[in-house]
């Protein structure tokens, strides 16, 4: 089998999940005795291709064009369609980033093929690749297989594989430039400036302890209770996306795929069900404790300690206990 990994960079900087997916691709290539190539796409990215070539790979494909300097779904789809026609991969792997979500389904569909997206793992059984992804917000997982002829497309979720497991090659892999034809008229969207909203007021990544609230907190009036607990523990208050969407806490308090990724020594989740978008942002925490009324909540899959119960009873009890220890 021929496997092609498509990496992601922006303005000459890697999206680091590219290397997690590289680790996955190397592992799959090893188990299926496949040839593995990795592509770098953009403009002026030859240095990145050279850097990538140090990894254990059979080839690096360098896809460059003036019109690929800024990402557009049309530009990337057209260029990668041509690259795929030349390289003829059977399996195309990508990191499940926001950019990949924006073009990869279209790339697959333009070839009449499908994509298994947001995979958390795979198995190689009896010569068949089975991709594992979550459904129902992580309450179930699914084994999914490709149907029909290759090429097949799959994306791996951030955190599903470890970038530090990427194998280095004995010698540098050859870098092959892949010429692509692209005209400005083919690109319908016009990418403008990239910017950041108001400066982050709080850097949650530096907090040793985080008390994090989810939907279970029910109303904004209940946030001060969680805040009090956070302060008694010497930590900061954070939240899952719905809480910030509601405006109960500012966006810079948000943990998860669209917020901050944290790894404190203690993460205490209050009324957070543990949807995967949240879990990817906190599963690296040293100790995870969760309080949730639903014993089947997916948060308990990553928790070291769990209390199944009403957080409106348990949090006041925690506060009382901490205040007692403090005053004694």
């Amino acid at each position, binding site marked *: 089998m021929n496997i092609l990994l498509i990496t992601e960079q922006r303005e000459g900087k890697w999206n680091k999940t590219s290397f997690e997916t590289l680790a996955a691709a190397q592992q799959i290539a090893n188990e299926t005795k496949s040839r593995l190539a990795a592509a770098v796409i953009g403009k002026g990215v030859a240095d990145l291709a050279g850097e990538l070539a140090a990894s254990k790979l059979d080839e690096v494909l360098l896809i460059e064009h003036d019109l690929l300097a800024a990402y557009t*779904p*049309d530009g990337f789809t057209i260029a990668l369609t041509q690259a795929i026609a030349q390289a003829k991969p059977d399996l195309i792997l990508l990191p499940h980033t*926001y950019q990949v*979500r*924006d073009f990869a*389904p*279209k790339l697959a*569909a*333009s070839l009449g093929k499908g*994509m*298994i*997206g947001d995979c958390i793992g795979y198995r190689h059984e009896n010569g068949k690749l*089975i991709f594992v992804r979550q*459904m*129902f917000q*992580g*309450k*179930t*997982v*699914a*084994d999914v297989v490709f*149907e*029909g002829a290759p090429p*097949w497309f799959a994306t791996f979720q951030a955190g599903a594989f470890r970038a530090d497991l990427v194998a280095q090659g004995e010698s540098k892999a050859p870098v092959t430039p892949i010429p692509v034809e692209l005209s400005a008229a083919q690109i319908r*969207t*016009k990418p*403008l*400036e*990239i*910017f*950041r*909203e108001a400066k982050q007021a709080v850097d949650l990544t530096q907090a040793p*302890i985080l008390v994090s609230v989810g*939907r279970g907190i029910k109303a904004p009036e209940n946030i001060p209770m969680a805040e009090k607990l956070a302060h008694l*523990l010497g930590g900061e208050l954070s939240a899952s*996306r*719905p809480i910030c*969407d509601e*405006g109960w806490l500012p966006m810079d308090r948000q943990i998860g*795929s669209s917020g901050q990724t944290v790894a404190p*020594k*203690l993460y205490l989740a209050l009324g957070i069900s543990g949807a995967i978008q949240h879990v990817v942002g906190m599963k690296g925490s*040293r*100790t*995870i404790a*969760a309080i949730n009324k639903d*014993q*089947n909540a997916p948060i308990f*899959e990553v*928790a*070291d*300690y*769990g*209390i*199944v119960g009403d957080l409106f009873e*348990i949090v*006041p*009890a*925690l506060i009382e*206990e901490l205040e007692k220890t403090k005053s004694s």
Partner: protein
Amino acid sequence: MKIVVCIKQVPAKDAPLVIADGTWIRETDIGFEMNEPDSFALEEALRLKEKHTGEVIAVSMGPERVKQTIKEALAKGADRGVHIADDKAHTLDPLGAAKSLAAAIEREKPDLVLTGLQSDDHGFGQTGVLLADRLGLPHATLIMQIGVESDHLRVKRELEAGWFQWVELPLPAVLTIQSGINKVRYATLKGIMAAKKKEIATIARESLGVTHEPTQRIERIYVPTKTKKTEFLNGTPKEAAAKLLEKLKHEARVL
């Protein structure tokens, strides 16, 4: 402006899920609701209509029960509904679902098609992008703000780690809406009454003439095996709280 908004009906958030037939869940005895990410897309469609005039058409695919979700959209202010009827819609792969939706939407010749960013059941997160491809329209995803300027849109797209980007694209177009873009309205009693008079057109999915060979197949779904062993702390709230603090101090040593 003629806006089509795709809304999916999914199991209610707190519905206890029981796996049935190995590849789906038992649908009896559980409640269903509008996929939350799609409710943001619906709200955005209604706001665009209020600002620029036009029509909002709510499209949903699935068994008879999804009509309830279309009715909810009508009660909130959508003008009419299209129900693509198929009891087995949940077995479609992302491309098959998008082809079917595209075939129905094409007939409407909309200026704008909106979807949520993903569904809370399958969670494919591909429908909007695939719809754009099938309809031959440009698209942008994870949109946090929409500006309409004569013949084009200027949209704010969310990137990762707190970054955003402005993107311009010509109309007609497809946008997937990021959750949290707006505050979703509730249906008013007046809206609920008005919805009773609004039309829901039902189209059988097989009548759309869509041919599709599945690109992927779900072999089985199952409850995930734990990666960590959770130690559950029992007792009264007071006892459980005391036990937790004890564990955090003396076992995990994080306090």
